[in-house]
């Protein structure tokens, strides 16, 4: 498996796009995580302090576990996961074979809007981190 090298310029473009599309729309935290569970970028930051290192590791593990679930039902992979909480919810999406994006938002933001904006952001990030 090749190592993931993140350049300053690519990261800047990705972060700007995340801020503009998701943070402005009310999503309080967005993380870019690699498949090994490392934090590539973290934007926003809600009122509560979140342990992003743990969140990133568990995200990668969660994706790995659910892709095994997918295989059991004859799918290759699930590209999107959504965990609904009482107040805050988590939205995970696989960008490419290396990256996962996690959005954390509360009940003031609609899931539909998040999905729409996430799709825009993915398009940009996919091009930036073309393997």
């Amino acid at each position, binding site marked *: 498996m090749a*190592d*993931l090298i*993140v350049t300053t310029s690519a*990261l800047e473009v990705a972060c700007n796009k995340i801020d503009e599309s998701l943070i402005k729309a009310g999503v309080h935290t967005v993380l870019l995580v690699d498949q*090994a*569970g*490392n934090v*590539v970028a973290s934007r926003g930051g809600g009122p509560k302090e979140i*342990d992003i290192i743990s969140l990133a590791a568990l995200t990668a593990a969660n994706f790995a576990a659910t892709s095994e679930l997918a295989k059991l039902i004859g799918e290759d992979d699930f590209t999107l996961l959504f965990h609904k909480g009482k107040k805050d919810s988590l939205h995970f999406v696989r960008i490419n074979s290396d990256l996962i994006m996690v959005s954390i938002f509360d009940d003031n933001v609609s899931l539909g809007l998040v999905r729409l904006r996430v799709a825009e952001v993915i398009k940009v990030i996919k091009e930036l981190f073309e393997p």
Partner: protein
Amino acid sequence: MALIDLSKREIHCKIVYYGPGRCGKTTNLLYIYNAMSEKTKGKMITIETKGERTLFFDLLPLTLGKVGGFDIRIQLYTVPGQALYEATRKLVLKGADGLVFVADSLRVRQVKNRESLEELRRSLREYGASLGEVPMVLQYNKRDLVSSPIPTIGVEELDRDLNNGLVFPRFEAAATKGVGVFETLKEISKRTVRHVTQKNMLVGR
């Protein structure tokens, strides 16, 4: 798969502690966690299950100084050792930059050690890697039991079983007392960071 962040000048590596069930992988991590200062360690995550066995993984993030101007961040993972959880072990192994194989010195665990190493070889192959390619260190754990009446395996025999030709550096350890724990960590961190930086030509040889 290491992450090299040129913007923050950080290298993130993943080191996985592998080995048969009850050999002391989590004990290694716990000892490191308790011994390191607050500044250099992160929060240890253990996915709680009933009993004291690891079901998914334990994770301990550490910061280990600078190499060639890059901050080194290491995440230590353990796998569940029980034979049943092969699929989970494979998931945790994904993207590992360095490996510690913890072997159990108890005579009754001799076959389990061999089986576990064989499984590691097989899983790596499925990820397109081989045992020699990923930096690895062996740890012969529970050496404190040698002097007890419980039958144990000698170091030479462990070498023959698991490390034929002494390809990998190996350390004798008693993880519950911390003996050999940091020696193992130091060696695997050094080898992993060297491997990642040389592969990506970040520092000279």
